[in-house]
């Protein structure tokens, strides 16, 4: 249940600016702006250069601040110190998804957010907060009594740590360890108490590493959940991500996930599948999402010239950039989880101990606590029509167990002008549902109590506790239902030379063979016409050959 957080990254960079040196940032912007504008006309380039100029040049050295020259005993104490200068920061964080874990989809009006959705990994947060909140930007969320108005419970450091030494551990309700602690459990390895003083004195802007400390590990481990986000992106080479290339453009997450007042843009709950309005000019106030390819590259991203390039540009009316430019995900040589079967969980060895089996790639493929897994590297995505609307199957929505449940159903189709063909990771699961209540189950996985599934492998107790926490009386009958969840693939953008070639789609059995509603030369045809056409051409050929043969024979005979 840990690490199901899907935060977006930009809170971070904004936090950095605001927490540290807001005034100086604006001064810098003013200083660099005219020159940049003159040299480079696009908004994207300007923003890039400004940030480049500022990198590593904060005007505040936090180690010199008296407030931070203390031996902090806990995270909230650090936050208290932060808030002495950054007086509004916690209030800003309170308004974000990173804090509330709630999101109201403006189109479907579905109440989403990590707090509300059920996925097919660790499934649900409810009843498992002590573990899940290891990825909450707060301290102390262990049950539904958590005080969401507390400013000191905001965790500034998890996003603004630059040391890489700050780790919130599952089971500690969002805290790092303050005492020596064995980690991972039963490993014989011990973590020293977190050095909050050093960490607090070295806070800075967010980075791929700080965002990644949660987002790379979603689903319970490195690379598990997204497929296009894993720790290989901490220091990626160009082939892995052309923008984040550590020796090249070196984008932070925040460069695309532009933030304001700690609110990070770019959300999986209400993604932007298409934007036909071109590059996003600074100052534009029409509320468009800046975290898209189009926001910088526009709608005709390939430099004009040859007919082939024009053709690529005209593909943007049907195809998301990601479809060609992310030819595969999990390209960082880390395997991503592709399926999770809870129905086999709970098998123990002869002595009644937990079993963990590893596959040929070294990943755990069976765990008594969780069931069976499969993993893949370099995965070719599935492709779907997508217009940005996602319909979730939420707790309480009818599930009858005979069909595959779509955890999140991507909307869109070929006749919808807002739809594009998108690459997705399809994650397949088999997970508990309450047969009597006909709903996906909330069950109690982790906790230091008798009912947690990971303590004593008893589904009934775990279900009873979890459903009750979710506000429903468990019917007493549970079963496992097959589920599917989709993850839009949008990171790990390959360099252009590695983008898909035409014939990877435009051929028989090409990548888009399951996409309906568009005619694709090379992939689609009318078989009857091909048959008749080839047959007629062959007959014509045979006819003239026979005719010619007779002529030749007759002429030889004289």
């Amino acid at each position, binding site marked *: 249940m840990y690490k199901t957080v899907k935060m977006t990254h930009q809170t971070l960079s904004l936090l950095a600016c605001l927490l540290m040196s807001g005034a100086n940032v604006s001064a810098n912007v003013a200083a660099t702006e005219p020159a940049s504008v003159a040299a480079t006309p696009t908004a994207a380039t300007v923003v890039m250069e400004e940030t480049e100029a500022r990198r590593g040049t904060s005007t505040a050295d936090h180690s010199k601040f008296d407030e931070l020259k203390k031996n902090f005993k806990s995270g909230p104490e650090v936050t208290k110190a932060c808030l002495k200068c950054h007086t509004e920061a916690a209030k800003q964080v309170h308004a974000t998804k990173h804090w509330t874990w709630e999101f109201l989809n403006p189109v479907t009006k579905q109440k989403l957010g990590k707090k509300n959705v059920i996925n097919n990994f660790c499934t649900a947060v409810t009843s498992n907060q002590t573990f899940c909140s290891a990825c909450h930007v707060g301290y102390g969320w262990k049950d539904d009594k958590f005080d969401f108005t507390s400013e000191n419970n905001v965790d500034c450091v998890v996003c603004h740590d630059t040391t890489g030494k700050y780790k919130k551990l599952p089971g500690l309700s969002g805290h790092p360890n303050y005492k020596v602690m064995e980690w991972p459990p039963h490993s014989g390895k011990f973590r020293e108490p977190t050095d909050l003083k050093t960490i607090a004195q070295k806070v800075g802007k967010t980075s791929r590493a700080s965002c990644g400390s949660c987002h790379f590990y979603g689903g319970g481990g490195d690379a598990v959940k997204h497929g296009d986000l894993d720790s290989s992106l901490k220091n990626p080479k160009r082939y892995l991500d052309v923008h984040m290339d550590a020796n090249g453009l070196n984008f932070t997450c925040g460069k695309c996930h532009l933030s304001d007042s700690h609110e990070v843009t770019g959300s999986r709950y209400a993604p932007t599948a298409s934007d036909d309005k071109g590059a996003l000019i600074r100052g534009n106030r029409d509320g468009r999402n800046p975290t898209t390819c189009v926001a910088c590259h526009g709608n005709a991203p390939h430099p004009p010239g040859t007919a082939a390039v024009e053709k690529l540009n005209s593909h943007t009316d049907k195809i998301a950039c990601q479809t060609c430019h992310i030819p595969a995900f999990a390209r960082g040589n880390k395997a991503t989880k592709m399926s999770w079967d809870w129905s086999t969980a709970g098998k123990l060895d002869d002595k009644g101990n937990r079993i963990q089996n590893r596959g040929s790639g070294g990943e755990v493929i069976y765990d008594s606590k969780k069931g069976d897994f499969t993993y893949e590297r370099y995965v070719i995505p599935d492709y779907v029509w997508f217009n940005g609307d996602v319909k979730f199957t939420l707790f309480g929505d009818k599930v009858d167990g005979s069909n595959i449940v779509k955890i999140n159903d991507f909307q869109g189709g070929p006749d919808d002008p807002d739809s594009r063909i998108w690459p997705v990771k399809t994650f397949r699961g088999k997970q508990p549902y309450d047969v009597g209540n006909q709903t996906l189950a909330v069950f109690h996985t982790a906790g230091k109590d008798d009912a947690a599934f990971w303590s004593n492998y008893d589904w009934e107790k775990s279900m009873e506790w979890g459903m009750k926490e979710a506000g429903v009386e468990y019917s007493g009958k549970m079963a496992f239902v097959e589920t599917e969840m989709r993850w839009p693939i949008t990171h790990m953008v390959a360099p252009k030379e590695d983008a898909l070639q035409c014939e990877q789609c*435009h*051929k028989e059995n090409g990548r888009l063979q399951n996409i309906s509603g568009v005619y694709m030369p090379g*992939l689609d045809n009318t078989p009857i016409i091909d048959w008749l056409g080839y047959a007629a051409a062959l007959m014509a050929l045979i006819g003239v050959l026979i005719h010619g043969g007779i002529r030749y024979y007759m002429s030889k005979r004289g």
Partner: protein
Amino acid sequence: MERIYIFKRFERFWHWSQAALIIILMATGFEIHGSYTVFGFKTATTTHTFAAWTLVWLWVFAVFWHFTTGEWKQYIPTTEKVAAMMRYYLTGIFTDAPHPFKQTRLSKHNPLQRLAYLFVLVVINPLIWTSGWLYLFYNDWAAWGIDFLNLEYVAFFHVVAAFMMLIFFIVHVYLATAGHTPTAHIKAMINGWEEIED
């Protein structure tokens, strides 16, 4: 044996450059269609598009030439001697029977040729050109207000026409060897001079 100058310089240029373009269009077109892989899809499509535009330009000149010279009249169909021509191709040609049609400068195509070329002109070409243009400008359909069309149907007609062109090509190339010697017609198409049996 009489020699007459049948095919003028522009006409020969038109014929052979058109032949080359049509061969290129067929070779790349059937690859785009998915029939085989030789050039790669990108090269095939760009070449196909380029060849198509080149053919358009060639036709601009060809149409001008046909009207200014009056040569368009060569394609006016006739039923005269059609049956005789068919009989000739089915039997006479094997036994060296006399050719039922006498070529002149004013009438350089035999009746079957006239019909075949007319078919190319009024059926195959309009079909292949219209569907091809629509294909080329697929992305402008919405702006032109013709997005009620469906690319699948456009592609269907383009492919049907392509097959007809392929069949025409096979038969045409073969019949080019049906002169009084196998290369007589081909030579005439190169140097313009046709040898006519007395």
